[in-house]
C-alpha cells in the first residue's frame, strides 16, 4: 500500500466517472466521441509491474463497457494499447539501449511525444469503432469516426498535459 497505489487507484476511478458522466454524453458533429479515460495508459509509469498494468488496463476498459453496454470492446482496445505501449515507445525513441528506469518521457522531442500519443490514441479508437460496427464493409465509417474522435481525445489529452503536467525541461 504505497503512495503510487492510491494515486493510480484514484486516477482509475476518477477517469471512469469522468468518462461515464461527461465524455460519453459528448458527440461533436455526430462523429467525434472523446475517450479520455485512456489517459491512464499514458500516465501509468512504465517502471511498474507489467502484468498488473495489463490487468488494470483490461479492468478499466471493462468498467467503461459495463456503463455503456458495449460488450468488451473498450476492454479489448485498452488492453491492446497497454500491451503495445512499450514497443511503440521504444520504436519512437529510437534508442538502441532502452533503459526503463532511466527513461524520461519529457526528454523526448515534441514530435516524438506527439506521435506516441497520437498513434496509441488512433489505434485504440480504431479497434473500438471496428468492433462496434463489426463488419469490414463499414471501414469508411470506422475511419471517419476514428479520425474525428482521435483528434478530439488527443486535444483533450494535450489540454490535460498543458494544465497538470509539470514541465521538467
Amino acid at each position, binding site marked *: 500500500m504505497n503512495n503510487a497505489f492510491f494515486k493510480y487507484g484514484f486516477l482509475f476511478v476518477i477517469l471512469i466517472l469522468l468518462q461515464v458522466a461527461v465524455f460519453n454524453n459528448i458527440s461533436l458533429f455526430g462523429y467525434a466521441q472523446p475517450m479520455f479515460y485512456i489517459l491512464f495508459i499514458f500516465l501509468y509509469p512504465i517502471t511498474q509491474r*507489467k502484468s498488473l498494468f*495489463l490487468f488494470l488496463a*483490461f479492468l478499466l476498459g471493462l468498467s467503461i463497457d459495463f456503463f455503456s453496454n*458495449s460488450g*468488451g470492446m473498450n*476492454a479489448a482496445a485498452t488492453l491492446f494499447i497497454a500491451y503495445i505501449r512499450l514497443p511503440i515507445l521504444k520504436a519512437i525513441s529510437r534508442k538502441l539501449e532502452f533503459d526503463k528506469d532511466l527513461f524520461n518521457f519529457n526528454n523526448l522531442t515534441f514530435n516524438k511525444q506527439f506521435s506516441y500519443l497520437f498513434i496509441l490514441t488512433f489505434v485504440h479508437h480504431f479497434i473500438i469503432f471496428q468492433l462496434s460496427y463489426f463488419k469490414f464493409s463499414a471501414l469508411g465509417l470506422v475511419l471517419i469516426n476514428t479520425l474525428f474522435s482521435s483528434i478530439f481525445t488527443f486535444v483533450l489529452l494535450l489540454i490535460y498535459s498543458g494544465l497538470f503536467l509539470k514541465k521538467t525541461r
Partner: protein
Amino acid sequence: MQQFFNFLVKYKYFLLFMLLEFFALFFTIQSHSFHKSIFVNSSNQFTGAVLNKIDTFRTYFNLTSENKSLLEENTFLKNKLAHFYTEDTLQKEKSTYHNNLKFKYISAKVIRNEFTKPNNYLTINKGEKDSVFSNIGAVNEKGVIGIVNHSSKNYATLISILNQNLKINVKLKHTDYFGSLVWDGVNYNVLQVIDIPRQAEFIIGDTIVTGGQSTIFPEGIPVGKILDIKIENDRYVKIEVKLFNDMSAIGHVYLIINPHKNEIKILEDNNNE
C-alpha cells in the same frame, strides 16, 4: 517439461495479454447477438445506481422542455379522451371492453441515453420490481424508442431503435404492406424500412407506423415519415424514414406490457412443433 516452463516464463506477458484479450473479444461478440450479452450490461444494481445519480444532476437542466412535452402529451390525451366519451360506452358489454384492453402502459425515466454509437442502448429506472422483463416495447408520445433486453430488480436496459441488431415490424399507415425497420448506423434521425413490396403505393411524406405483427408493439404507434424511396431489387423497395422522435433528447418513456404475450407465444410455439 523444463522447456515448457521456460516458454511460459518467456512469454508470460504475451500469454496474459492473449487471455484477457480473448475475454474482451468474447464479451464483444456476445454483445452483438441480441439477448446474449449476459454479463456486461448497465442494468445491474451498481451501474444502474451510478447512472441514476448522474441523471438526477442532469435532469435539472431539462426540466422546462420536459414539462413542455408532458403538457403537450396531456393535451393530446385529453382530446382523445373527449372524443372517446362521445360514444356511449355504457351500451357496450363490460366483458368485451376488458378483452379489448390488450396492452398496459407504465411510465419510466431514461437515466442514460445514447445515440451516437453504431449500436445504442438506453438505461431506464424501472425493473423487475415493476414487472419489466425482456421483450417489452418502449415508446414515447412521438413514437417508438426500443425494446427491453435486460432487467435487474430496479433497472432495465433498452436496445434502442438506433441499433443495428434490432429489427421492428412496421407498415405503411392505412395499408397492410409490412416491412422491417432497421438502422444503417449513419444518421440518428434517419432509419430504413426494408422488405416493402414494390407494388405498395405510397409517396414521400407518408407515415410509417408499427405493424402489430409482433407481441411487443401494438399496431399503429407512429415511427416516422418517408424521406426517400430506393428500389432494392425487382420485388422490394427500401425506404428512408425520418423519425418523429428526436433520439438525442429522450426523457420519459412508456413501457408497453402485453398481458397476453405468454398466451400468444405458447400458441405459436405449439404450431412450430
